[in-house]
């Protein structure tokens, strides 16, 4: 198993008026080609920060990310991101949203017809062919997220980064989306890092679950390998003792962290661990500002 992506001992500090705030400390993770890894942890623990560093949207203060032997220094389409709130351009149709990405990535290597086929193929993959000429305002939240995934897949990324992709969806839609994602994954065998809050989602989809400790100075607490056979079916797994064991392990980890948050600097940042937001640094900085 060769390492595709090496998240090598990264520290992440954000400057605040009260001095640097350490969001991540020594996060170290190696991910193999075709592996599906979930990051799970409490709100504000820095899961999104890890993802943003891998995406290149943030630069790690120490350590670095190495993809295919090359260090990541800036964002790029080979690390496509599926954002939590779809982030489709509202003035473009589903097709045009994917087209923007395809033109940018394959504009010089594919012909016009090839690009059109490729866009349609990706929309078909997420079952959105029927609504590809609709704008985001005209389709449901789940459909928007499907288009967001199609856009990311259309870039043919080496690593697909998903930031709580189904977090904003209702339970039923989320289940559909998870099944769709497993279907796509079975076909494409992408390397995926997904952030989630949802224990069932993590166990169902992942090859490995990375459990993060609470921030500040969050790091990797435990890593759980999920050795369930694929294809996985949620109904069959519900009675599977192994599945329930994995589930219990993750729950236990999260529960322990919640009751005994190992946060030495917590007093400096009141309410942070309870704030129901992802750990985007802007939010953290604002919290600090308000407290000051």
């Amino acid at each position, binding site marked *: 198993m060769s390492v595709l992506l090496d998240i090598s001992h990264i520290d992440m500090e954000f400057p605040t008026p009260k001095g640097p705030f350490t969001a991540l400390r020594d996060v170290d993770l190696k991910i193999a080609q075709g592996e599906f890894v979930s990051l799970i942890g409490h709100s504000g623990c820095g899961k999104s920060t890890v993802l943003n560093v891998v995406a290149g*949207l943030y630069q790690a203060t120490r350590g670095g990310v190495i993809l295919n032997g090359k260090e990541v220094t*800036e964002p790029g*389409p080979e690390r496509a*991101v599926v*954002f939590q709130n779809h*982030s489709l351009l509202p*003035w473009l149709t589903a097709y045009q949203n994917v087209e923007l990405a395809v033109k940018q990535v394959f504009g010089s290597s594919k012909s016009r017809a090839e690009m059109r086929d490729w866009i349609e193929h990706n929309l078909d993959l997420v079952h959105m062919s029927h609504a590809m000429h609709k704008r985001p305002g005209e389709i449901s939240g789940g459909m928007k997220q499907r288009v967001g995934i199609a856009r990311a897949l259309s870039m043919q990324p080496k690593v697909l980064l998903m930031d709580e992709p189904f977090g904003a969806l209702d339970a039923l839609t989320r289940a559909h989306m998870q099944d769709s994602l497993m279907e796509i994954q079975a076909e494409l065998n992408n390397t995926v890092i997904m952030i989630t809050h949802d224990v069932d989602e993590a166990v169902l989809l992942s090859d490995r679950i990375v459990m993060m400790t609470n921030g500040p100075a969050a790091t990797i607490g435990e890593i759980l390998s999920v050795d369930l056979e694929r294809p996985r079916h949620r109904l069959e797994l519900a009675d599977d003792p192994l599945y329930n064991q994995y589930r219990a392990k993750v729950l236990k980890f999260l529960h322990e962290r919640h009751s005994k948050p190992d946060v030495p600097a917590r007093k400096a940042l009141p309410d942070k661990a309870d704030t129901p937001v992802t750990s985007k640094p802007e939010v953290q900085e604002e919290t600090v500002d308000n407290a000051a």
Partner: protein
Amino acid sequence: MNTTSVNTGKFYGFRLPQLDSGLVRGFIRLVALPLVGILAFLLLWSVTAQNIDTSLGKFPGPSAVLEQFDALYGEHQRSREKEQAFYERQEARNAKRVAEDPGYEPKIRAYTGKETFIDQIVTSLITVMSGFLLAVLIAIPLGIAVGLSKTLNSAVNPIIQIFKPVSPLAWLPLVTMVVSALYTTPDPIVAKSFLNSMITVTLCCLWPMVINTAVGVAGIDNDLVNVSKVLRLPALRHVQKIVLPASVPMIFTGMRLSLGVAWMVLIAAEMLAQNPGLGKFVWDEFQNGSSDSLARIMAAVLVIGFIGFLLDRGMLALQKLVSWDNTATQ
């Protein structure tokens, strides 16, 4: 009224027939009620007008104003006929002289009759649109730059904040002097007075557009910016594909505000500077002081209002055409 049907359309307690009750309601809201409002205004106007005596006679009521509309149009047509006759005479005269002396080069003199009401309307419209378009060309790129760069914003913001509250009329004397000093071609393409009015309009349009564009650009959803970063869109394509469409609603809000203010300012500037246009028409009539003057000014007031309304509707229609969200409202 159909009282037996259960599901009848209701409007203010009345029961309307179920059949096309929506149409009836729409008719009442869009046609009948505005008509009632206009009629009430006309009534109030004519009653009040009869009770106001000025040194130029009674304040004009609706009928007097209507008469003047007719008169103004008549004057316009007569003026056009005179103009045509003038050019025909000139042509005939020149043809004759050429026939007598083949070496003679005919001179064409322009007709110099007084501008009619309609000419003044056209002049004002051309002025306001030119000034507005010039402002668009300056303000939108500037607004985008200011919105994109926090550094530039910090640098430019104080200047904008100081010049924004200045009435463009205060600029008028300066603009006039600067144009006189700099625009000194012997064969001018456009009149100096036109440039003065146009630049005044531009100055007043500039600030709302710069501010709204900058606010719109600076307020773009961070996720959309991240999408652009992940795609590695080059700067120009980023502006074209993400920044510009995302801020179109705010840009158009600024444009609509500007155009409304511009039209008001233009009339005032034309009055103040005696530049051709509807403002000059109003001022001339006021100085003229005939018994018809007030009615003619009132006619101009109505036309100014109506044109302002049409300009705003035009911008709204344009905004609806290009906006992807539904913020374009009345």
